[in-house]
């Protein structure tokens, strides 16, 4: 169980995340929706402590995540994997090494500086890549892959972390519709098969409706909706998206058209 209590992040006068309280039970696939600037990324980055909260508390199981420092903090980041809109792979390294980076947290200093991974770790990496149907690209440089393929490698890296939670910050926002549905399908499959908790920021509504168990709506840093996808009525959508409502609704048609059938 992930517990977020009164979490707040301010940048100067901007309250990027404003007093958000949220509980996510194990195994749930939660979609966070909201227009750009609503604070979705900031919320996720605080959960994995890439960003320091200004106030509030994050707890996981019995641990106080907000209090972690140093090695314990890095261990938490490893347990709480994250994938990004821009994939954030190391473009000049091959796919296999990128997947192996998910194990950095277990490596000794010399082993990680010299990129020495064990045979068992390599085998795990290949298996993780294979789950994403990317094993055949293992020795290719990451920056030669398409966006959708890169995101699948990023998911494989996340799996290598053997995480308790997977955070996804707009994982499909820069992908074409077909790649987008492949990536979302992969996230949902991993969520179901491994019982992995997934919190996923989504710009478009339909993706959230198609894939998520639960949808959380944010507006100007505040939590303004929390419920099942079917509870999202037009009035709520208008409230969350404001002037972008049209766009959010129309983009849906292109973003997950293919997967809606699956």
């Amino acid at each position, binding site marked *: 169980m992930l517990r977020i209590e009164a979490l707040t992040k301010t940048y100067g006068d901007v309250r990027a995340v404003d007093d958000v309280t949220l509980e996510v039970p194990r195994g749930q696939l939660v979609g966070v929706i909201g227009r750009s600037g609503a604070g979705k990324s900031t919320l996720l980055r605080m959960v994995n402590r890439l960003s320091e909260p200004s106030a509030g508390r994050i707890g996981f199981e019995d641990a106080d995540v907000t209090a972690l420092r140093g090695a314990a903090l890095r261990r*938490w980041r490893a347990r709480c994997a994250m994938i990004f809109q*821009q994939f*954030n792979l*190391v473009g*000049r*390294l091959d796919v296999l090494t990128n997947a192996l980076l998910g194990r*950095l947290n277990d490596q000794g200093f010399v082993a990680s500086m010299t990129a020495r991974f064990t045979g068992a770790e390599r085998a795990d990496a290949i298996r993780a890549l294979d789950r994403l149907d990317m094993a055949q690209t293992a020795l290719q440089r990451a920056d030669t892959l398409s966006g959708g393929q890169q995101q699948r490698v990023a998911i494989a890296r*996340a799996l290598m*972390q053997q995480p308790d939670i997977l955070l996804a910050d707009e994982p499909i926002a820069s992908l074409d519709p077909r790649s987008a549905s492949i990536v979302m399908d992969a996230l949902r499959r991993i969520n179901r098969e491994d019982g992995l908790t997934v919190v996923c920021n989504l710009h478009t509504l339909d993706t959230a409706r198609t894939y998520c168990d639960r949808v959380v709506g944010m507006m100007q840093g505040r939590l303004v909706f929390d419920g099942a996808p079917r509870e999202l009525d037009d009035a709520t959508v208008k409230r969350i998206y404001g002037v972008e409502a049209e766009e959010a609704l129309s983009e849906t048609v292109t973003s997950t058209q293919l997967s809606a059938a699956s």
Partner: protein
Amino acid sequence: MGWATAGPGPRSPAYAMASTASTFDGDPVATFERHYAEVATQRRRRTLLFWAIFVVILGVAIDVSTFFPERLAEGLPKIGGYLYDTLPVLRPEHLFADVETAGSLAYWYFNLPKYAGLLFTTINMALFSTLLGAIGALLLCFAASRNLAPNWWIFTLSRRFLEFCRAVPEVVFALIFVYAFGIGPAAGVLAIAIHSAGALGKLFSEVNENVDHGALDGVRAAGGNWFEEMRYGVLPQVWPNFLSYIWMRLEINIRASSIIGFVGGGGIGQELHYVISFNYYEEVSAIVILIVLTVTCTDLISERLRHRAIGRENLM
């Protein structure tokens, strides 16, 4: 003078567009000409000011350095005289005769085995000092990058340290090390290595400051520590640039290591200093020619290798 002098031609598409969707008031050509004239005047003024300042500085510099024409006129013939003295006496009929015969090439280069050994030392000094310098720069450059340093203290300390290494001339370091460790290549290598570390460290950290932070975030989010962030988030991106800087430094260091011997830093420079001091005129020219040949050859080889390396950057 940039784009203003080129300007859009009368029939260019840009001109056609301007006449349909004009952003100028009234006649676009007249407006442009007026604006152009203004810009040109401004530039002329700036150029004039630049030359005025330049002339003043030049005057001061000449005065300070006592670089006067009459001294120059007096000194130049002396240079000619010295150069003439260093020329070997070569006799065409004996040119390829053995070491014993005065006037042969072999006689001139009677010390060639010794020179070759010293030259080998010099090149090794350059290689080794570049390697040491590159390692030093690599270790410090991440901490000396504003965007990567873990905190302000480490950033400032490593940056100041690199500045110090770079600001002190190699010869000064060499003098100190010769005093401490005695005459020989070790002092020269250390001196050049420290200066190289400073120079390379600065260049490296500038490359680091333009790095894309995506990969860094990725490594951090996976639980990597600072060293792992640098190793995987930064190094793969910057390594090709680092390599070309190291290469450039090697070329510089071959020159530097032939000179460093003058203060006791070992290699061919030390021999050159010796023959100059003892007025072994013919040996001076023999050694200078060898050094010039070496530097030219390394530059040529280096250029070849660099061209071959372009496009093949899978070095990591």
